[in-house]
């Protein structure tokens, strides 16, 4: 695990000429077309655009969930597109984490256990894991709900657990795909504010896909994406 306080020389995310097309020939649908951009360490970038504009595809390629047709993605200087399955697993375990629109919590586990999942994957000693989980639940304001299962929590609380889980492994890059998509506006704003706060406190770089204009204000930079191309 790298030290979040350690200064980095280059960009945290470097994307060059990224292209991804679904289908072939007549049915081919270009999702991303020659996309290039950088994200600086500790920066929070909002990727905005309409449905089908390529936001999710971009996040998937950044996190190694999908492979591009061409182009490169560098995370903290390491090329992602050439990594094999084990390398990608290691990347997701150690450097990149996700916050899903549908939270993605494990229903049989308590909030604390869900937050501890990335630490288990890294085989963190039990004592350290418990300490970190407690810290994160405190950070997202769910210390009193540590023993509750996702079914016993509201949507906003579940997403806060998901954010805590995403931060548990101290990732360098946090990817959030429509993290407020399942929440009402007020809860969504609260969650986004929390995300902003914890990203700052943990020193994490974040790329957040959203189509909610209100949430863009919380980002350091907005990356507009339309028809697979990145604008201003």
């Amino acid at each position: 695990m790298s030290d979040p306080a350690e200064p980095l020389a280059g960009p945290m995310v470097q994307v060059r000429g990224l292209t991804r097309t679904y289908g072939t020939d007549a049915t081919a649908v270009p999702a991303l077309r020659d996309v290039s951009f950088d994200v600086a360490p500790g920066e929070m970038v909002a990727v905005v655009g309409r449905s089908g504009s390529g936001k999710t595809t971009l996040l998937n390629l950044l996190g190694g969930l999908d492979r591009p047709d061409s182009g490169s993605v560098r995370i903290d200087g390491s090329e992602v597109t050439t990594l094999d399955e084990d390398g990608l697993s290691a990347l997701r375990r150690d450097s990149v984490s996700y916050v899903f629109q549908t939270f993605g919590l494990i229903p049989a586990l308590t909030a604390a256990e869900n937050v501890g999942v990335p630490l288990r994957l890294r085989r963190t000693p039990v004592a350290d894991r418990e300490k970190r989980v407690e810290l994160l639940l405190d950070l997202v304001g769910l210390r009193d709900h540590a023993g509750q299962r996702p079914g016993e929590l509201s949507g906003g609380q579940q997403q806060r657990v998901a954010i805590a889980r995403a931060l548990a492994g101290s990732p360098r890059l946090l990817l959030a795909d429509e993290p407020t998509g399942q929440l009402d506006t007020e809860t969504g704003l609260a969650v986004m504010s929390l995300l902003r706060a914890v990203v700052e406190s943990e020193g994490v770089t974040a790329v957040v896909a959203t189509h909610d204009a209100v949430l863009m204000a919380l980002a350091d930079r907005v990356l507009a994406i339309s028809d697979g191309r990145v604008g201003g």
Partner: protein
Amino acid sequence: MRRRFPRAHAATVGGRWRADWPLLLLTGLVVALTVGLAAAVDPVTERAADRAIAAAVHDAGASGAVVATLPAWYDDPRGKTRDPSTAVQVRQDADYARQALPAGLDAVLRPGVAWVTTPTLQVRQVGPTKLLQLAFVDTAGEAPAVTYDEGGPPRAVPRRALGLVEVALSQTVADALELEAGDRRTVQDEQGRSAKLRVSGVFTPGDPDAEAWDVSARLLHPVQGTADGLPYTSAAALVSAGSLADLRLVLPADDLTRRVSFRPDPSRVRWLAARSLEREIVSLQASASLSRGDVAWDSLLGSTLERARADIASARGRADVLLIGLLAATLLVLVLAAQLLVLRRRDPLTMARQRGASLASIGLELLVEGLTVAVLGAVVGLGAVVLVTGSAGWAWAVPVAVVAALASPVLGASWADVWAGARRVPANRSARRTATRTRLLRRLAVETAVLLVAALSFSALLQRGVAGDGAAGGDVTAASAPTWWAVAGALVLLRVLPVPVRWALRATRRSPGGVGFFVAARIGEAGARALPVLVVVVAVAGITLGASLAESDRAGQTSAALSSVGGDARIDADPQADLAQLAEDAEDEPGVDAAAAARVEDGARLSSGGASQAVRLVVVDAGDYAALLAASNLADAPQLGRLDAADGDEVPALLVGGDSVLRDTASLRWEDTSVPIDVVGTAPDVDASAAPVLVVDTDSFAAAGAVALPDTLWVVGTGTDAALDRIASRVDGVDSVVRLSDELEARRTAPLPSALIDLAVASSVLLLVLGILGLLLSAAAQAPERARSLGRLRALGLPQGEVRRVLVGELAVPVAVAALAGWLLGVACSYAMLGSLTAGSPTDVEVSWWTIGVVPILVVAAVAVAVLEWRRIRRRPLSQLLRT
């Protein structure tokens, strides 16, 4: 407003059919297979039942005949003249009796054998007592086929010799009585009325097994014995149509018994007609009596048929037990298939509902498809059965076809409503709590109902057994008890499973690694689904019970065969002292562990006070017999040691069965003498006798002045067959050598047991297939959700190898637990119910422990499914998995 009737959209139905044809084909195959098996049961069991009835009637032999006793001739004693038409009258009497038979009986009986017999007459001569019965036998106007070695057939005597009767003797009878053609003797009855006989010839029977000789066994097989210490020979002589008129003239009418015997043709007796035949026999016996000058009827055919029918009903009941288990597993698999079908169509069904399609039209479209598959599957199954057996049973096929047709429309309409959001979760917390409580109460009500039905069916099984009233089918309620137990057990398992899952979660919570923890979490999340658990539990319990039932039946056959033979082999012979020597010789043969010679006499009268009962008397050397029992698998009888200690004049004896009064001092009638008996203990059962068995020691019996020459030799040991081949020829008059292996083979290949074991094997194989199919279908139904969930873990960094291990654990552990629970339930059902199910005694219950092997088979199948699923998941991009 005009009411719109639901309509099925043909293009939608066709499109879905094309998209899901493998699953629909699988459903059709399950329907065809199960309907085929269920439909085959009726014709196959009917045939087996017909063969069993035929075998029972065949085995009953002469005792299964319907016998008419005709009133005595009225001959004026003052003016008695020779009536040359006597034989014709006998034939006419037979025809008359035949016409009196009810139509059902008439159809199954062979032509009658008419006969006229005298009582046993004593031959007046110096020397050992010789007894002779005279018999005229007529089979459809013909005398029994014989070849005369000396002289010729009896003829009517000329007028000048009136008072003389010509008779013919079989060669064995002539030798035993020391008579030859031309010899004359005087015989007299108990009243001293005499007749003069002349031996016209000595014959050899054309067919010693012909029905005509059943009239009197002594026509071919004279009996020799001792009475009051004196030897005697008892035999019978044949009277011809010509000499019958002379016999009628010589002996008074009350000395002549006229009977007609109709033996059933086993191939014509049908199981379904057996009950009506029994009623006809009862009605025939009640309709007339000799005292009223009518024909009197007598037959044991009714009780033979009743016993056979009871055996068939019991076998059908046991078949029902297997079928109900199979049917339950099939129905569950069909529901699982329908569930998978509907889940695969979740998006279009949801969309259709959201766009305003009525539930009826959604259901109708699925019904068209389900009905087509069910009907096609049923037609294929039934058609195959009709082609092979010529007919098919419908009863069991109907529920399979109905569930196959209705499961997907019912599930589809119901789930489409939920998925479309029509049944939203109430926003109000109190309403949510009420909804939760309602769900819990509904589940509790279902569970209570199942437990109640399981208890009631078990009670019915214990009280009534599975045979029912002996009509066409068994008692379905009782026969369903094992399946209800399995279902109830599965529900209990579903209730308790969360406890060990929580325990496993707690146990792995503090481990640094993740696989065990994630497996427990995934099982807690999705593993304990009701239908797959039910299918596996019911299938494995059914396999275990079916195998145990077959094994117990085989054990019952083994012990019954051993009890019937009395050892590894038995020689039945004429009573003779040589058998005792043969027993000693047999014991010296290699491979023979023990041998005992005995006299086994059925129908000996044992009396005490006012009670009297026919018993099977066994006179045997107590020491030899105890050694024989000890060397064999027959139950030991330590009380045999008490038979040596004679107390006074009474012969110590062991008795099993019979009236309790007989357990005191009793008296045994043996060859015109009375032997005082002191019952000192309980006898071992001999030859699975239905009658009480009395065992006495040879020496004690002889000391009381009774002589019983042995007629039976039992031999035990691995070398028995070879020993008997060498020594059996050393004695004459051997009637039969009965070997345990032959007896066992006969019982194993008997129609009912073999059909039942075939069914047990077939249903076990099908249950295993259904268990694996259920596992596959449930795995397929949950695969998208599992892929999504595992995809999230992969997105969090779970390596591929660990994904595979989590997947294997998630699929294999619930299967292992359910299969193990099913096996335990099967074992419990076997112990609790086989006593009421098996044909043998409750002590023959054998649990098939080897069926535990089904558990690893299912687990391996689950692991294979998991590995295949993992390979499929691995090939798909993670982004796609998370999107599904």
